[in-house]
């Protein structure tokens, strides 16, 4: 439509610079721009359509330099190109190029422009003719198409989705860019064919792949399946391939389809499956263990419902384990609600720490040992029936208490017997001997100097014998029950005992006693005195001490006796493990009055016995 003008037009223009009217009508109807220019670029005439579209009158443009018109106001570069094209045409060189003009509606229109010389009969260029066609819509569509293609490829790349087409008749295969990526091959060197495709399929999947494609071609039906491929570098990919068949004359001509790289998803699924299987196996193993243990095990959710009960748990609760699942624990066992069971469960949840509870369940009169652990979903509770154990413990405790009472009673009886014997010895034998001794003295006085030497000798012998017997009696009596304790009280008795010890062993025994009179009852006095005797006996036997210190003091309501030596000492564990009756006796003496005896020692640093009893303790009943 640009330079299709016939002879009439050419003649007309050349002759009168106006267009022949018939031809003008045609040009005016054209949507495209047609303009006539002087050789120096002045627009001499143009058709109507571009003027109408631009809202201009012919007078607005005719006679003006073409490139100065508003059409080119947007770009100096386009003005230069157009001016140059007109100038070239004026020199006889036609040209065609794409330029742009300002649209009256705003924006810029793409224009397919052409400029050509118009020659006179002499062959010289007289005018320049220019045409322009709006190609904006076409350009837009082209751009859109290109962008779409780019987007599709981007999408394929992102989705690891490739497309392919197999022309069966020509055995030509074409791949999208992404498919080359998926197969790990280079577009420049790899030529895809059916055979090369089948070759890259994993050997284990090859037969299946061939079958799928054969059946699709045979039945002319769409297909979809998963298969692995091996890349040239040896790595595997898992692909999901879909395709359909284009047929002609009842036979398959082409296969078209997509390949989706699902390796990541497949690996994730495989890992998830493996993890699930592992968890399942661990859970199964755990349940097998829980079923084997003799302890009861229950898992509770946070709403106190049974989530799991093992076989032993069911037996201990007297229910079928499975029948408890989903049931509410305090509905099933309402007597436990609000009791220490519930408090302990709540505590384990609140404090998120294990709780140990040994508790009696009154409805069954059974004792249960519970180990309650908080879990993410609620609680895990191990429990076992310890009724028999509890009974044995109670009995043991009772029998230990009985034994202690018996031992205390025995000790009292022994003390009483000693006291009686000591008293008898003192009152009967001792007094009689005393009288005898005094009488002997009296007899000697009466005989005076008249006694024969023989009588004098025998009297002296008798007096010596009485003295000896009296001393023996006194010693036996004091050993059984030191009269000094009853006569003079504990401080004096301690001083006496300390003196006795020093005399007997040669080891200095220093007694540190309260200056003022100290009020300590007879029971406490006796207990502390016997503890002192026992402690000193141990010192004499084992300690190899060079010095012993004994101290007595009141400490509030208590009387405290301390016996410390500087002997070889005992290790603490030696003391506690020693089955020494002496140590046990010291403890029991104090315990019977509600007090205590603590023995401490350190090898090489001596031993200390510290006894503490209520000062006014009564004799135990």
């Amino acid at each position: 439509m640009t330079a299709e003008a016939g002879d009439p037009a050419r003649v007309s223009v050349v002759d009168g610079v106006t267009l022949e009217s018939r031809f003008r009508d045609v040009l005016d109807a054209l949507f495209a721009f047609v303009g006539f220019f002087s050789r120096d670029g002045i627009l001499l005439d143009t058709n109507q359509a571009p003027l109408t579209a631009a809202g201009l009158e012919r007078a607005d443009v005719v006679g003006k330099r073409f490139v100065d018109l508003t059409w080119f106001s947007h770009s100096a570069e386009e003005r230069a190109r157009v001016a140059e094209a007109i100038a070239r045409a004026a020199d006889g060189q036609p040209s065609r190029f794409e330029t742009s003009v300002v649209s009256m509606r705003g924006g810029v229109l793409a224009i397919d422009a052409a400029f050509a010389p118009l020659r006179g009969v002499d062959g010289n260029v007289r005018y320049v003719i220019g045409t322009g066609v709006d190609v904006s819509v076409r350009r837009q569509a082209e751009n859109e198409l290109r962008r779409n293609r780019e987007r599709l490829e981007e999408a394929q790349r992102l989705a690891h989705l490739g497309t392919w087409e197999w022309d069966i008749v020509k055995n030509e295969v074409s791949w999208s860019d992404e498919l080359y990526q998926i197969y790990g091959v280079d577009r420049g060197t790899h030529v895809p064919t059916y055979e090369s495709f089948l070759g890259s399929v994993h050997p284990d999947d090859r037969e299946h792949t061939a079958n799928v494609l054969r059946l699709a071609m045979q039945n002319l039906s769409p297909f979809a399946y998963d298969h692995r491929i091996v890349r040239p570098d040896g790595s595997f990919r898992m692909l999901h391939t879909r395709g359909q068949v284009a047929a002609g004359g009842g036979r398959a001509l082409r296969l078209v389809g997509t390949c989706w790289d699902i390796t990541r998803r497949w690996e994730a699924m495989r890992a998830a499956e493996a993890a699930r299987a592992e968890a399942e196996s661990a859970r199964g193993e755990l349940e097998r263990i829980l079923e084997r243990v003799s302890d009861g095990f229950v898992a509770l959710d946070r709403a106190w419902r049974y989530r799991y009960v093992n076989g032993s748990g069911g037996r201990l609760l007297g229910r079928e384990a499975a029948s408890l699942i989903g049931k509410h624990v305090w509905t099933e066992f309402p007597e436990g609600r609000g009791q220490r069971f519930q408090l302990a469960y709540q505590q384990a949840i609140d404090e998120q720490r294990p709780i140990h509870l040994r508790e009696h369940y009154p409805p069954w009169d059974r004792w249960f040992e519970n180990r309650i652990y908080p879990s993410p979903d609620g609680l895990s509770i191990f429990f076992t029936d310890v009724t028999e154990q509890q009974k044995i413990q109670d009995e043991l405790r009772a029998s230990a208490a009985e034994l202690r009472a018996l031992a205390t009673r025995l000790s009292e009886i022994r003390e009483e017997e000693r006291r009686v014997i000591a008293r008898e010895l003192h009152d009967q034998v001792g007094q009689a001997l005393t009288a005898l001794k005094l009488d002997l003295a009296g007899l000697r006085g009466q005989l005076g100097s008249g006694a024969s030497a023989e009588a004098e000798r025998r009297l002296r012998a008798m007096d010596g014998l009485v003295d000896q017997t009296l001393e023996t009696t006194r010693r036996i009596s004091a050993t059984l029950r030191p009269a000094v304790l009853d006569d003079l009280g504990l401080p004096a008795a301690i001083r006496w005992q300390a003196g006795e010890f020093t005399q007997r062993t040669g080891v200095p025994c220093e007694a540190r006693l309260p200056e003022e009179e100290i009020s300590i009852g007879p029971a406490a006095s006796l207990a502390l005195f016997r503890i002192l005797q026992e402690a000193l006996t141990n010192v004499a036997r084992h300690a190899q001490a060079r010095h012993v210190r004994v101290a007595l003091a009141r400490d509030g309501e208590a009387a405290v006796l301390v016996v410390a030596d500087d002997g070889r000492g005992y290790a603490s564990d030696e003391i506690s493990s020693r089955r020494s009756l002496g140590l046990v006796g010291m403890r029991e003496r104090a315990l019977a009055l509600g007090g205590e005896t603590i023995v401490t020692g350190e090898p090489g640093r001596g031993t200390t016995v510290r006894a503490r009893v209520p000062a006014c303790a009564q004799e135990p009943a």
Partner: protein
Amino acid sequence: MKRILLVDDSEAVRGSLRQLLVEALPDVVVEEEAAAGAALVAVGREPWDLVMLDLSLPDRGGVQALREIRALRPELPVVVMSLHPERDYRAAMRASGATDYVSKGSPAPAIAAVVRSALGLV
């Protein structure tokens, strides 16, 4: 003349001691009691120059009896006696308010000396 109250629950001992005292001290009267209660009655009833008090009496301890005598007659000398050696008892008994202490097993002259001293005869 000195009046001595001899308190001991053993009749044999009382007899022997009386003999010793009479022989050792020419001018004494010796009265006897067998229990602390009766002795206290006697102390409250009439004047004495000395009480010889056994430490172990059937009705109460000698120390207690000593305390009660002291309460009745603070100036009355009291010599406490027992079978135990002086070594163990003398200081304790003096601390408890006794004028002196003597072991009944001591030689007769020693006993007589203690009594004389308590009576202020030396």
